[in-house]
Protein backbone atom coordinates (compact mmCIF):
# COMPACT_ATOMS: atom_id res chain seq x y z
CA UNK A 1 0.00 0.00 0.00
CA UNK A 2 1.51 3.28 -1.15
CA UNK A 3 1.23 6.48 0.76
CA UNK A 4 -1.52 8.85 -0.30
CA UNK A 5 -0.63 11.98 -2.27
CA UNK A 6 1.19 14.85 -0.64
CA UNK A 7 1.59 18.41 -1.78
CA UNK A 8 4.53 20.69 -2.24
CA UNK A 9 3.94 24.41 -2.12
CA UNK A 10 5.69 26.11 -5.03
CA UNK A 11 7.25 28.58 -2.65
CA UNK A 12 8.99 25.62 -1.05
CA UNK A 13 10.17 24.12 -4.33
CA UNK A 14 13.69 25.46 -4.19
CA UNK A 15 14.20 24.48 -0.60
CA UNK A 16 12.82 21.05 -1.41
CA UNK A 17 15.24 20.63 -4.30
CA UNK A 18 18.04 21.82 -2.07
CA UNK A 19 17.33 19.01 0.39
CA UNK A 20 17.23 16.50 -2.44
CA UNK A 21 20.60 17.68 -3.66
CA UNK A 22 22.17 16.67 -0.38
CA UNK A 23 21.57 13.03 -1.20
CA UNK A 24 21.03 12.96 -4.91
CA UNK A 25 22.40 14.33 -8.13
CA UNK A 26 19.55 16.32 -9.50
CA UNK A 27 18.54 16.67 -13.15
CA UNK A 28 15.77 18.70 -14.66
CA UNK A 29 14.71 21.10 -17.37
CA UNK A 30 16.82 24.25 -17.54
CA UNK A 31 16.25 27.25 -19.75
CA UNK A 32 19.27 28.13 -21.87
CA UNK A 33 17.75 31.02 -23.76
CA UNK A 34 14.32 32.38 -24.42
CA UNK A 35 12.31 29.45 -25.70
CA UNK A 36 15.17 26.98 -25.49
CA UNK A 37 15.61 24.47 -22.71
CA UNK A 38 17.27 21.12 -22.08
CA UNK A 39 17.54 18.53 -19.32
CA UNK A 40 20.66 19.23 -17.39
CA UNK A 41 22.43 18.46 -14.17
CA UNK A 42 21.21 21.01 -11.65
CA UNK A 43 23.88 22.93 -9.77
CA UNK A 44 21.52 25.46 -8.29
CA UNK A 45 17.78 24.88 -7.70
CA UNK A 46 17.27 28.36 -9.10
CA UNK A 47 17.96 26.98 -12.58
CA UNK A 48 15.05 24.57 -12.70
CA UNK A 49 12.31 25.66 -15.05
CA UNK A 50 9.12 23.64 -14.85
CA UNK A 51 7.00 26.23 -16.60
CA UNK A 52 7.64 25.44 -20.22
CA UNK A 53 6.38 22.46 -22.14
CA UNK A 54 8.89 19.84 -23.24
CA UNK A 55 12.51 20.96 -23.49
CA UNK A 56 14.05 20.80 -26.96
CA UNK A 57 16.34 17.95 -26.05
CA UNK A 58 14.41 15.02 -24.66
CA UNK A 59 14.75 13.14 -21.40
CA UNK A 60 16.86 10.40 -23.05
CA UNK A 61 19.82 12.73 -22.76
CA UNK A 62 19.96 12.11 -18.99
CA UNK A 63 20.64 8.42 -19.54
CA UNK A 64 22.14 8.50 -22.99
CA UNK A 65 24.11 11.70 -23.34
CA UNK A 66 24.60 13.23 -26.75
CA UNK A 67 28.32 12.94 -26.22
CA UNK A 68 29.62 10.58 -23.58
CA UNK A 69 33.05 9.27 -22.71
CA UNK A 70 32.95 5.46 -22.57
CA UNK A 71 36.45 4.95 -21.38
CA UNK A 72 39.75 6.71 -21.19
CA UNK A 73 43.00 5.10 -22.15
CA UNK A 74 46.60 5.76 -21.71
CA UNK A 75 49.46 4.17 -23.53
CA UNK A 76 52.27 2.81 -21.43
CA UNK A 77 54.92 1.46 -23.73
CA UNK A 78 53.26 -1.08 -25.93
CA UNK A 79 50.43 -1.66 -23.51
CA UNK A 80 47.33 0.40 -23.16
CA UNK A 81 45.54 0.95 -19.91
CA UNK A 82 41.80 1.27 -20.28
CA UNK A 83 39.58 2.77 -17.60
CA UNK A 84 35.84 2.69 -18.15
CA UNK A 85 33.69 5.59 -17.01
CA UNK A 86 30.50 3.62 -16.62
CA UNK A 87 30.19 3.85 -12.82
CA UNK A 88 27.60 6.18 -11.38
CA UNK A 89 28.49 7.27 -7.89
CA UNK A 90 25.42 8.94 -6.48
CA UNK A 91 21.74 8.24 -6.67
CA UNK A 92 19.96 10.52 -9.09
CA UNK A 93 16.65 12.26 -9.36
CA UNK A 94 15.17 13.58 -12.57
CA UNK A 95 12.30 15.98 -12.18
CA UNK A 96 9.96 17.63 -14.61
CA UNK A 97 9.85 14.72 -17.04
CA UNK A 98 6.72 14.64 -19.14
CA UNK A 99 4.80 11.38 -19.59
CA UNK A 100 5.73 11.12 -23.28
CA UNK A 101 9.43 11.36 -22.54
CA UNK A 102 9.10 8.78 -19.80
CA UNK A 103 7.24 6.47 -22.18
CA UNK A 104 10.17 6.88 -24.53
CA UNK A 105 12.65 5.94 -21.83
CA UNK A 106 10.68 2.75 -21.20
CA UNK A 107 11.21 1.93 -24.87
CA UNK A 108 14.90 2.69 -24.62
CA UNK A 109 15.13 0.38 -21.61
CA UNK A 110 14.29 -2.48 -23.93
CA UNK A 111 16.93 -1.49 -26.46
CA UNK A 112 19.72 -0.88 -24.02
CA UNK A 113 19.02 -3.81 -21.75
CA UNK A 114 18.63 -6.30 -24.56
CA UNK A 115 18.63 -10.05 -24.29
CA UNK A 116 22.31 -10.56 -24.99
CA UNK A 117 24.11 -7.41 -24.04
CA UNK A 118 23.47 -4.73 -21.47
CA UNK A 119 24.54 -1.23 -22.31
CA UNK A 120 26.16 -0.48 -18.98
CA UNK A 121 26.45 3.24 -19.57
CA UNK A 122 22.72 3.57 -19.93
CA UNK A 123 21.76 0.88 -17.45
CA UNK A 124 23.82 2.10 -14.52
CA UNK A 125 22.39 5.59 -14.78
CA UNK A 126 18.89 4.27 -15.19
CA UNK A 127 19.20 2.00 -12.17
CA UNK A 128 20.29 4.80 -9.91
CA UNK A 129 17.60 7.21 -11.02
CA UNK A 130 14.31 8.13 -9.42
CA UNK A 131 11.99 9.62 -12.03
CA UNK A 132 9.61 12.39 -11.12
CA UNK A 133 6.98 12.72 -13.81
CA UNK A 134 5.16 15.98 -14.39
CA UNK A 135 1.61 15.99 -15.67
CA UNK A 136 0.82 18.04 -18.77
CA UNK A 137 -2.08 20.26 -17.81
CA UNK A 138 -2.09 21.90 -21.20
CA UNK A 139 -1.02 19.58 -24.00
CA UNK A 140 0.02 21.42 -27.13
CA UNK A 141 -1.68 21.13 -30.49
CA UNK A 142 1.36 19.19 -31.69
CA UNK A 143 1.02 16.59 -28.93
CA UNK A 144 -0.32 13.26 -30.12
CA UNK A 145 0.65 11.09 -27.19
CA UNK A 146 -2.89 9.74 -26.94
CA UNK A 147 -2.60 8.32 -30.45
CA UNK A 148 0.57 6.50 -29.42
CA UNK A 149 -0.95 4.88 -26.37
CA UNK A 150 0.08 7.55 -23.88
CA UNK A 151 -1.58 10.56 -22.39
CA UNK A 152 -0.88 13.81 -20.56
CA UNK A 153 -1.39 12.24 -17.14
CA UNK A 154 -0.05 8.75 -17.78
CA UNK A 155 2.00 7.72 -14.79
CA UNK A 156 3.66 4.60 -16.18
CA UNK A 157 7.39 4.71 -15.61
CA UNK A 158 7.28 7.48 -13.01
CA UNK A 159 8.41 6.85 -9.47
CA UNK A 160 6.71 10.01 -8.34
CA UNK A 161 4.17 12.04 -10.25
CA UNK A 162 3.61 15.75 -9.86
CA UNK A 163 0.55 17.67 -10.89
CA UNK A 164 0.72 21.44 -11.09
CA UNK A 165 -2.17 22.81 -9.04
CA UNK A 166 -1.25 26.46 -9.53
CA UNK A 167 0.27 27.36 -6.17
CA UNK A 168 1.48 23.87 -5.34
CA UNK A 169 2.29 20.50 -6.83
CA UNK A 170 0.31 17.45 -5.91
CA UNK A 171 2.87 14.71 -5.29
CA UNK A 172 1.92 11.08 -5.86
CA UNK A 173 4.12 8.22 -4.71
CA UNK A 174 4.07 5.42 -7.25
CA UNK A 175 6.97 3.14 -6.41
CA UNK A 176 9.14 2.21 -3.52
CA UNK A 177 11.87 4.40 -4.93
CA UNK A 178 9.45 7.27 -5.06
CA UNK A 179 8.23 6.67 -1.57
CA UNK A 180 11.75 7.09 -0.28
CA UNK A 181 11.19 10.82 -0.68
CA UNK A 182 7.92 10.88 1.23
CA UNK A 183 9.50 11.67 4.56
CA UNK A 184 10.67 15.07 3.41
CA UNK A 185 9.28 17.64 5.84
CA UNK A 186 8.49 20.12 3.09
CA UNK A 187 5.86 17.74 1.77
CA UNK A 188 2.50 18.40 3.34
CA UNK A 189 -0.58 16.29 3.38
CA UNK A 190 -2.81 16.99 0.42
CA UNK A 191 -6.46 17.61 1.23
CA UNK A 192 -9.47 16.32 -0.63
CA UNK A 193 -10.08 19.53 -2.55
CA UNK A 194 -6.55 19.43 -3.93
CA UNK A 195 -6.96 15.85 -5.01
CA UNK A 196 -10.23 16.80 -6.66
CA UNK A 197 -8.57 19.67 -8.45
CA UNK A 198 -5.91 17.31 -9.80
CA UNK A 199 -8.63 15.01 -11.04
CA UNK A 200 -10.36 17.89 -12.78
CA UNK A 201 -7.11 18.92 -14.42
CA UNK A 202 -6.56 15.39 -15.57
CA UNK A 203 -10.03 15.25 -16.99
CA UNK A 204 -9.57 18.49 -18.89
CA UNK A 205 -6.15 17.59 -20.25
CA UNK A 206 -7.33 14.20 -21.42
CA UNK A 207 -10.20 15.80 -23.26
CA UNK A 208 -7.74 18.07 -25.00
CA UNK A 209 -5.33 15.33 -25.93
CA UNK A 210 -7.68 13.14 -27.86
CA UNK A 211 -6.49 10.41 -30.10
CA UNK A 212 -7.45 11.65 -33.52
CA UNK A 213 -5.00 9.40 -35.29
CA UNK A 214 -5.18 5.64 -35.09
CA UNK A 215 -2.09 3.74 -36.07
CA UNK A 216 -3.70 0.37 -35.88
CA UNK A 217 -2.26 -1.97 -38.48
CA UNK A 218 0.64 0.30 -39.34
CA UNK A 219 3.26 -2.41 -39.04
CA UNK A 220 1.47 -4.64 -41.55
CA UNK A 221 0.76 -1.76 -43.85
CA UNK A 222 4.43 -0.81 -43.93
CA UNK A 223 5.42 -4.39 -44.68
CA UNK A 224 3.77 -3.91 -48.05
CA UNK A 225 5.27 -0.49 -48.66
CA UNK A 226 9.00 -1.09 -48.67
CA UNK A 227 9.35 -0.42 -52.37
CA UNK A 228 6.44 1.96 -52.66
CA UNK A 229 6.80 5.18 -54.70
CA UNK A 230 5.30 6.77 -51.60
CA UNK A 231 8.79 7.28 -50.23
CA UNK A 232 9.72 9.40 -53.21
CA UNK A 233 7.14 11.92 -52.15
CA UNK A 234 7.78 11.67 -48.44
CA UNK A 235 11.46 12.42 -48.82
CA UNK A 236 11.05 15.39 -51.12
CA UNK A 237 11.23 18.17 -48.61
CA UNK A 238 13.68 16.52 -46.23
CA UNK A 239 16.85 18.59 -46.23
CA UNK A 240 18.83 15.85 -44.52
CA UNK A 241 19.54 17.52 -41.18
CA UNK A 242 19.30 15.58 -37.95
CA UNK A 243 16.81 17.62 -35.99
CA UNK A 244 13.99 15.07 -35.93
CA UNK A 245 16.26 12.26 -34.83
CA UNK A 246 18.34 14.13 -32.27
CA UNK A 247 15.29 15.71 -30.67
CA UNK A 248 13.31 12.48 -30.80
CA UNK A 249 12.94 10.94 -27.33
CA UNK A 250 13.11 7.42 -28.73
CA UNK A 251 15.84 7.70 -31.37
CA UNK A 252 18.93 6.07 -30.00
CA UNK A 253 21.46 5.58 -32.76
CA UNK A 254 25.00 6.43 -31.90
CA UNK A 255 28.48 6.58 -33.28
CA UNK A 256 31.66 5.52 -31.49
CA UNK A 257 34.84 7.48 -32.07
CA UNK A 258 38.25 7.89 -30.51
CA UNK A 259 39.45 11.31 -29.44
CA UNK A 260 43.14 11.22 -28.82
CA UNK A 261 46.32 13.12 -28.56
CA UNK A 262 49.71 11.58 -28.01
CA UNK A 263 49.24 8.36 -26.17
CA UNK A 264 46.13 9.20 -24.22
CA UNK A 265 42.60 9.74 -25.15
CA UNK A 266 39.11 8.55 -24.83
CA UNK A 267 36.54 6.55 -26.65
CA UNK A 268 33.43 8.62 -27.00
CA UNK A 269 29.99 7.86 -28.17
CA UNK A 270 27.90 10.51 -29.85
CA UNK A 271 24.36 10.54 -31.05
CA UNK A 272 24.11 9.67 -34.69
CA UNK A 273 21.28 9.91 -37.13
CA UNK A 274 19.98 7.67 -39.90
CA UNK A 275 19.32 10.84 -41.88
CA UNK A 276 23.01 11.54 -42.23
CA UNK A 277 24.61 10.09 -45.36
CA UNK A 278 27.69 9.18 -43.33
CA UNK A 279 25.67 7.01 -41.03
CA UNK A 280 25.61 4.07 -43.38
CA UNK A 281 28.45 5.01 -45.72
CA UNK A 282 30.94 2.18 -45.96
CA UNK A 283 34.68 2.64 -46.26
CA UNK A 284 34.54 1.26 -49.78
CA UNK A 285 32.39 4.23 -50.77
CA UNK A 286 29.29 2.08 -51.10
CA UNK A 287 26.26 3.45 -49.31
CA UNK A 288 23.29 1.15 -48.88
CA UNK A 289 21.13 4.20 -48.21
CA UNK A 290 22.43 6.63 -50.77
CA UNK A 291 19.62 9.22 -50.85
CA UNK A 292 17.11 10.88 -48.56
CA UNK A 293 14.58 8.45 -49.95
CA UNK A 294 16.19 5.44 -48.29
CA UNK A 295 17.06 7.47 -45.21
CA UNK A 296 13.62 8.90 -44.52
CA UNK A 297 12.20 5.45 -45.16
CA UNK A 298 14.60 4.01 -42.62
CA UNK A 299 13.52 6.56 -40.03
CA UNK A 300 9.83 5.81 -40.43
CA UNK A 301 10.23 2.08 -40.92
CA UNK A 302 12.35 1.83 -37.81
CA UNK A 303 9.76 3.57 -35.71
CA UNK A 304 6.65 1.90 -37.06
CA UNK A 305 7.73 -1.44 -38.46
CA UNK A 306 11.16 -2.67 -37.33
CA UNK A 307 10.82 -1.57 -33.72
CA UNK A 308 7.38 -3.18 -33.36
CA UNK A 309 8.82 -6.37 -34.85
CA UNK A 310 11.64 -6.41 -32.35
CA UNK A 311 9.99 -4.98 -29.25
CA UNK A 312 6.26 -5.13 -29.76
CA UNK A 313 5.45 -1.43 -29.84
CA UNK A 314 5.99 1.57 -32.09
CA UNK A 315 8.97 3.78 -31.33
CA UNK A 316 7.05 7.02 -31.24
CA UNK A 317 5.45 8.58 -28.19
CA UNK A 318 3.78 11.53 -29.86
CA UNK A 319 5.78 14.30 -28.21
CA UNK A 320 5.58 16.42 -31.36
CA UNK A 321 9.14 17.71 -31.29
CA UNK A 322 9.90 16.62 -34.84
CA UNK A 323 6.83 18.52 -36.02
CA UNK A 324 7.73 21.70 -34.18
CA UNK A 325 11.42 21.81 -35.01
CA UNK A 326 11.73 20.37 -38.52
CA UNK A 327 13.17 23.17 -40.68
CA UNK A 328 11.12 21.88 -43.62
CA UNK A 329 7.98 21.52 -41.52
CA UNK A 330 7.56 17.81 -42.07
CA UNK A 331 4.57 16.62 -40.06
CA UNK A 332 4.82 13.00 -39.10
CA UNK A 333 1.13 12.86 -38.26
CA UNK A 334 0.26 13.69 -41.83
CA UNK A 335 2.66 11.08 -43.14
CA UNK A 336 1.20 8.44 -40.86
CA UNK A 337 -2.26 9.32 -42.09
CA UNK A 338 -1.07 8.95 -45.66
CA UNK A 339 0.44 5.57 -44.88
CA UNK A 340 -2.74 4.33 -43.25
CA UNK A 341 -5.21 5.82 -45.70
CA UNK A 342 -3.53 5.49 -49.07
Amino acid at each position, binding site marked *: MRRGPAKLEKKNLKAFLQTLMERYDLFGPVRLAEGVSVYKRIDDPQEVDLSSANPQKPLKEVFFAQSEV*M*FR*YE*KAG*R*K*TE*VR*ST*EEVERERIVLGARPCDIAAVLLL*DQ*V*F*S*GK*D*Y*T*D*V*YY*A*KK*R*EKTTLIGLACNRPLSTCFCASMGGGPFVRRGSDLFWIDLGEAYLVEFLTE*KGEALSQNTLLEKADASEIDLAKALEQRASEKATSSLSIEGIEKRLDEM*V*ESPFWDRVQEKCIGCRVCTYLCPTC*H*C*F*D*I*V*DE*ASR*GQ*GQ*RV*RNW*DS*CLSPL*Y*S*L*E*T*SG*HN*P*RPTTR*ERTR*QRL*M*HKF*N*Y*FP*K*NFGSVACVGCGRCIIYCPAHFDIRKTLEEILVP
Partner: protein
Amino acid sequence: MFHDLGDEGLPMKNPYQPIPMVVRKAWIETSDRMLRTLELGFADKEEERSFQFIPGQFCELSVFGKGEAPFGIASAPTEQGALRFTINKAGVVTTALHQVEEGDEIGLRGPLGNGYPLEAFEGKNLLVIGGGFAFTTLRSLIVYFLHPQNRSKIGDITVLYGARMPGLLLYKEELAQWERREDLKLVVTVDQGDGNWKGKVGLVPNVLEEIAPSSNDTYAVICGPPIMIKFTFPKLMALRFPIERIYTSLERRMKCGIGKCGRCNIGHLYVCKDGPVFSYAQLEKLPRDY
Protein backbone atom coordinates in the same frame (compact mmCIF):
# COMPACT_ATOMS: atom_id res chain seq x y z
CA MET B 1 12.66 -4.19 -15.60
CA PHE B 2 15.63 -2.01 -15.28
CA HIS B 3 15.40 -1.59 -11.60
CA ASP B 4 16.06 -5.26 -11.15
CA LEU B 5 19.21 -5.28 -13.21
CA GLY B 6 22.29 -6.14 -11.32
CA ASP B 7 20.27 -7.17 -8.30
CA GLU B 8 21.40 -10.72 -8.79
CA GLY B 9 24.72 -9.61 -7.46
CA LEU B 10 26.45 -10.07 -10.76
CA PRO B 11 28.37 -7.12 -12.07
CA MET B 12 27.19 -6.04 -15.48
CA LYS B 13 29.78 -6.80 -18.09
CA ASN B 14 30.71 -3.84 -20.20
CA PRO B 15 30.25 -4.99 -23.78
CA TYR B 16 32.05 -1.94 -25.15
CA GLN B 17 35.32 -2.41 -23.36
CA PRO B 18 37.94 -4.18 -25.43
CA ILE B 19 40.27 -6.82 -24.07
CA PRO B 20 43.99 -6.49 -24.73
CA MET B 21 45.52 -8.58 -27.50
CA VAL B 22 49.15 -8.81 -28.49
CA VAL B 23 50.22 -8.78 -32.11
CA ARG B 24 52.20 -12.01 -32.34
CA LYS B 25 52.88 -11.97 -36.03
CA ALA B 26 51.98 -9.78 -38.92
CA TRP B 27 52.55 -10.21 -42.62
CA ILE B 28 51.47 -8.78 -45.93
CA GLU B 29 49.32 -11.17 -47.96
CA THR B 30 49.05 -9.61 -51.38
CA SER B 31 51.22 -8.00 -54.01
CA ASP B 32 49.36 -4.72 -53.82
CA ARG B 33 50.25 -4.60 -50.10
CA MET B 34 46.68 -3.72 -49.24
CA LEU B 35 45.97 -6.87 -47.27
CA ARG B 36 47.77 -7.67 -44.09
CA THR B 37 47.19 -10.54 -41.75
CA LEU B 38 47.57 -10.13 -38.00
CA GLU B 39 47.94 -13.00 -35.62
CA LEU B 40 46.77 -11.91 -32.20
CA GLY B 41 47.47 -13.58 -28.90
CA PHE B 42 45.53 -13.00 -25.71
CA ALA B 43 47.29 -10.82 -23.17
CA ASP B 44 45.03 -12.24 -20.49
CA LYS B 45 44.90 -16.03 -20.15
CA GLU B 46 41.49 -15.85 -18.48
CA GLU B 47 40.08 -14.13 -21.55
CA GLU B 48 41.63 -16.76 -23.76
CA ARG B 49 39.89 -19.56 -21.90
CA SER B 50 36.48 -17.92 -22.12
CA PHE B 51 36.81 -16.96 -25.77
CA GLN B 52 34.69 -19.41 -27.74
CA PHE B 53 33.71 -18.73 -31.31
CA ILE B 54 32.42 -20.35 -34.46
CA PRO B 55 33.50 -19.66 -38.05
CA GLY B 56 31.72 -16.66 -39.54
CA GLN B 57 31.77 -14.59 -36.39
CA PHE B 58 33.66 -11.32 -36.22
CA CYS B 59 35.43 -9.08 -33.74
CA GLU B 60 35.82 -5.36 -33.30
CA LEU B 61 39.51 -4.47 -33.34
CA SER B 62 40.65 -1.25 -31.65
CA VAL B 63 43.67 0.84 -32.28
CA PHE B 64 43.46 3.31 -29.44
CA GLY B 65 43.35 6.83 -30.72
CA LYS B 66 42.18 5.74 -34.13
CA GLY B 67 39.04 3.83 -33.38
CA GLU B 68 37.42 0.51 -33.90
CA ALA B 69 36.33 -1.56 -36.90
CA PRO B 70 34.79 -5.01 -37.43
CA PHE B 71 36.71 -7.91 -39.01
CA GLY B 72 35.70 -11.48 -39.67
CA ILE B 73 37.78 -14.01 -37.78
CA ALA B 74 40.00 -15.71 -40.35
CA SER B 75 41.34 -18.40 -38.05
CA ALA B 76 39.34 -21.44 -37.07
CA PRO B 77 38.26 -22.45 -33.57
CA THR B 78 40.39 -25.53 -34.09
CA GLU B 79 43.51 -23.37 -34.27
CA GLN B 80 44.33 -22.77 -30.65
CA GLY B 81 46.22 -19.98 -29.06
CA ALA B 82 45.77 -17.12 -31.43
CA LEU B 83 43.22 -15.32 -33.58
CA ARG B 84 43.88 -14.31 -37.11
CA PHE B 85 42.48 -11.36 -39.02
CA THR B 86 43.17 -10.16 -42.54
CA ILE B 87 42.81 -6.45 -42.94
CA ASN B 88 42.12 -4.50 -46.09
CA LYS B 89 43.68 -1.07 -45.87
CA ALA B 90 40.94 1.42 -46.59
CA GLY B 91 40.16 3.85 -43.80
CA VAL B 92 41.68 5.30 -40.65
CA VAL B 93 41.47 2.19 -38.46
CA THR B 94 42.60 -0.26 -41.13
CA THR B 95 45.53 1.96 -42.00
CA ALA B 96 46.50 1.98 -38.34
CA LEU B 97 46.19 -1.81 -38.24
CA HIS B 98 48.61 -1.95 -41.14
CA GLN B 99 51.07 0.00 -39.04
CA VAL B 100 50.98 -1.92 -35.76
CA GLU B 101 54.08 -3.92 -35.11
CA GLU B 102 54.69 -7.33 -33.66
CA GLY B 103 54.58 -7.03 -29.88
CA ASP B 104 52.12 -4.10 -29.91
CA GLU B 105 48.92 -4.32 -27.95
CA ILE B 106 45.58 -3.64 -29.55
CA GLY B 107 42.01 -4.01 -28.33
CA LEU B 108 39.46 -6.63 -29.25
CA ARG B 109 35.76 -7.12 -28.60
CA GLY B 110 34.07 -10.31 -29.56
CA PRO B 111 33.25 -12.78 -30.78
CA LEU B 112 30.25 -11.02 -32.28
CA GLY B 113 27.51 -12.07 -34.66
CA ASN B 114 25.97 -15.43 -35.40
CA GLY B 115 28.51 -17.33 -37.51
CA TYR B 116 27.85 -20.04 -40.08
CA PRO B 117 25.15 -22.61 -39.26
CA LEU B 118 27.58 -25.48 -38.68
CA GLU B 119 24.94 -27.84 -37.38
CA ALA B 120 22.85 -27.43 -40.51
CA PHE B 121 25.88 -28.17 -42.65
CA GLU B 122 26.65 -31.41 -40.84
CA GLY B 123 26.11 -34.50 -42.93
CA LYS B 124 25.79 -32.44 -46.10
CA ASN B 125 28.20 -31.44 -48.85
CA LEU B 126 29.65 -27.97 -48.79
CA LEU B 127 30.33 -25.61 -51.68
CA VAL B 128 32.39 -22.59 -50.69
CA ILE B 129 32.63 -19.70 -53.15
CA GLY B 130 34.90 -16.81 -52.33
CA GLY B 131 36.11 -13.73 -54.13
CA GLY B 132 38.93 -11.35 -53.29
CA PHE B 133 39.57 -10.49 -49.67
CA ALA B 134 36.17 -11.74 -48.55
CA PHE B 135 37.84 -15.13 -48.16
CA THR B 136 38.67 -14.60 -44.47
CA THR B 137 35.77 -16.25 -42.65
CA LEU B 138 35.53 -18.80 -45.45
CA ARG B 139 39.03 -19.86 -44.57
CA SER B 140 37.91 -20.24 -40.99
CA LEU B 141 35.02 -22.43 -42.11
CA ILE B 142 37.17 -24.59 -44.37
CA VAL B 143 39.93 -25.07 -41.81
CA TYR B 144 37.32 -25.95 -39.21
CA PHE B 145 35.85 -28.75 -41.31
CA LEU B 146 39.25 -29.99 -42.50
CA HIS B 147 40.28 -30.62 -38.91
CA PRO B 148 40.52 -34.38 -38.28
CA GLN B 149 37.92 -34.08 -35.54
CA ASN B 150 35.40 -32.47 -37.85
CA ARG B 151 36.14 -33.82 -41.29
CA SER B 152 33.79 -36.73 -40.88
CA LYS B 153 30.94 -34.38 -39.97
CA ILE B 154 30.62 -33.20 -43.50
CA GLY B 155 30.52 -34.72 -47.00
CA ASP B 156 32.36 -33.35 -50.02
CA ILE B 157 33.98 -29.97 -49.70
CA THR B 158 34.34 -27.93 -52.88
CA VAL B 159 36.09 -24.58 -52.73
CA LEU B 160 36.00 -22.07 -55.57
CA TYR B 161 38.16 -19.06 -54.90
CA GLY B 162 38.82 -16.22 -57.29
CA ALA B 163 40.82 -13.01 -57.27
CA ARG B 164 41.50 -10.36 -59.84
CA MET B 165 45.17 -11.31 -60.15
CA PRO B 166 47.37 -14.10 -58.79
CA GLY B 167 49.11 -11.62 -56.50
CA LEU B 168 45.84 -10.75 -54.81
CA LEU B 169 45.03 -14.26 -53.61
CA LEU B 170 45.01 -14.68 -49.85
CA TYR B 171 46.69 -17.49 -47.92
CA LYS B 172 48.67 -18.76 -50.91
CA GLU B 173 50.75 -21.30 -49.01
CA GLU B 174 47.67 -22.79 -47.51
CA LEU B 175 45.95 -22.94 -50.89
CA ALA B 176 48.93 -24.90 -52.18
CA GLN B 177 48.56 -27.36 -49.30
CA TRP B 178 44.84 -27.73 -49.91
CA GLU B 179 45.54 -28.36 -53.56
CA ARG B 180 47.37 -31.54 -52.57
CA ARG B 181 44.63 -32.81 -50.32
CA GLU B 182 42.27 -35.48 -51.47
CA ASP B 183 39.45 -34.66 -49.14
CA LEU B 184 38.88 -31.23 -50.66
CA LYS B 185 38.26 -30.09 -54.19
CA LEU B 186 39.91 -26.72 -54.67
CA VAL B 187 39.49 -24.55 -57.75
CA VAL B 188 41.41 -21.30 -57.75
CA THR B 189 40.85 -18.86 -60.54
CA VAL B 190 42.00 -15.36 -61.43
CA ASP B 191 40.40 -12.80 -63.69
CA GLN B 192 43.72 -12.12 -65.29
CA GLY B 193 46.85 -14.28 -65.09
CA ASP B 194 50.47 -13.25 -65.14
CA GLY B 195 53.64 -14.90 -66.49
CA ASN B 196 53.89 -17.35 -63.59
CA TRP B 197 50.26 -18.26 -63.28
CA LYS B 198 49.55 -21.79 -64.34
CA GLY B 199 46.10 -22.08 -62.84
CA LYS B 200 42.70 -21.23 -64.12
CA VAL B 201 41.85 -17.92 -65.67
CA GLY B 202 38.23 -16.90 -65.63
CA LEU B 203 35.57 -15.12 -63.65
CA VAL B 204 34.08 -16.91 -60.69
CA PRO B 205 30.54 -17.21 -62.16
CA ASN B 206 31.90 -18.72 -65.37
CA VAL B 207 34.15 -21.13 -63.55
CA LEU B 208 31.27 -22.17 -61.35
CA GLU B 209 29.25 -22.95 -64.44
CA GLU B 210 32.17 -24.93 -65.79
CA ILE B 211 32.81 -27.07 -62.71
CA ALA B 212 29.04 -27.38 -62.17
CA PRO B 213 29.01 -28.85 -58.65
CA SER B 214 25.95 -30.85 -57.78
CA SER B 215 23.40 -29.17 -55.56
CA ASN B 216 22.27 -32.51 -54.18
CA ASP B 217 22.43 -32.41 -50.42
CA THR B 218 24.75 -29.42 -50.68
CA TYR B 219 24.97 -26.12 -48.90
CA ALA B 220 26.59 -23.19 -50.69
CA VAL B 221 28.38 -20.39 -48.88
CA ILE B 222 29.27 -17.40 -50.98
CA CYS B 223 31.25 -14.31 -49.98
CA GLY B 224 32.78 -11.75 -52.25
CA PRO B 225 32.38 -8.36 -53.85
CA PRO B 226 28.77 -7.43 -54.70
CA ILE B 227 29.45 -7.65 -58.44
CA MET B 228 30.69 -11.23 -58.11
CA ILE B 229 27.70 -12.21 -56.03
CA LYS B 230 25.35 -10.58 -58.48
CA PHE B 231 26.57 -12.75 -61.35
CA THR B 232 27.27 -15.92 -59.40
CA PHE B 233 23.89 -16.10 -57.76
CA PRO B 234 21.98 -16.86 -61.01
CA LYS B 235 24.46 -19.64 -61.72
CA LEU B 236 23.68 -21.19 -58.35
CA MET B 237 20.01 -20.93 -59.23
CA ALA B 238 20.71 -22.67 -62.54
CA LEU B 239 22.47 -25.43 -60.60
CA ARG B 240 19.24 -25.76 -58.62
CA PHE B 241 20.52 -24.67 -55.26
CA PRO B 242 17.47 -23.74 -53.20
CA ILE B 243 17.81 -20.30 -51.57
CA GLU B 244 17.42 -21.87 -48.14
CA ARG B 245 20.77 -23.57 -48.73
CA ILE B 246 22.72 -20.59 -49.99
CA TYR B 247 24.41 -18.58 -47.28
CA THR B 248 26.37 -15.38 -47.37
CA SER B 249 28.05 -13.10 -44.92
CA LEU B 250 27.09 -9.46 -45.24
CA GLU B 251 29.27 -6.45 -44.72
CA ARG B 252 27.80 -3.26 -43.40
CA ARG B 253 29.10 -0.20 -41.65
CA MET B 254 29.06 -1.15 -37.98
CA LYS B 255 29.98 0.50 -34.73
CA CYS B 256 28.77 -1.20 -31.59
CA GLY B 257 28.58 -4.74 -32.95
CA ILE B 258 25.88 -5.64 -30.42
CA GLY B 259 22.71 -4.35 -32.04
CA LYS B 260 22.39 -1.07 -30.19
CA CYS B 261 23.81 1.70 -32.29
CA GLY B 262 21.52 1.30 -35.32
CA ARG B 263 23.01 1.73 -38.78
CA CYS B 264 23.66 -1.91 -39.83
CA ASN B 265 20.04 -2.97 -39.86
CA ILE B 266 18.43 -4.59 -42.85
CA GLY B 267 14.78 -4.43 -42.10
CA HIS B 268 14.29 -5.34 -38.46
CA LEU B 269 17.43 -7.45 -38.32
CA TYR B 270 20.86 -6.18 -37.38
CA VAL B 271 23.76 -7.47 -39.41
CA CYS B 272 26.02 -7.31 -36.36
CA LYS B 273 23.78 -9.22 -34.02
CA ASP B 274 21.36 -11.25 -36.17
CA GLY B 275 24.02 -11.74 -38.89
CA PRO B 276 26.44 -11.30 -40.49
CA VAL B 277 25.57 -14.73 -41.90
CA PHE B 278 22.22 -14.96 -43.63
CA SER B 279 20.61 -17.41 -45.99
CA TYR B 280 19.13 -16.02 -49.15
CA ALA B 281 15.80 -17.30 -47.97
CA GLN B 282 16.09 -14.87 -45.04
CA LEU B 283 17.35 -12.02 -47.18
CA GLU B 284 14.52 -12.43 -49.62
CA LYS B 285 12.09 -11.42 -46.92
CA LEU B 286 14.01 -8.26 -46.03
CA PRO B 287 14.05 -4.87 -47.72
CA ARG B 288 16.80 -4.51 -50.31
CA ASP B 289 18.67 -2.21 -48.01
CA TYR B 290 22.19 -3.46 -48.61
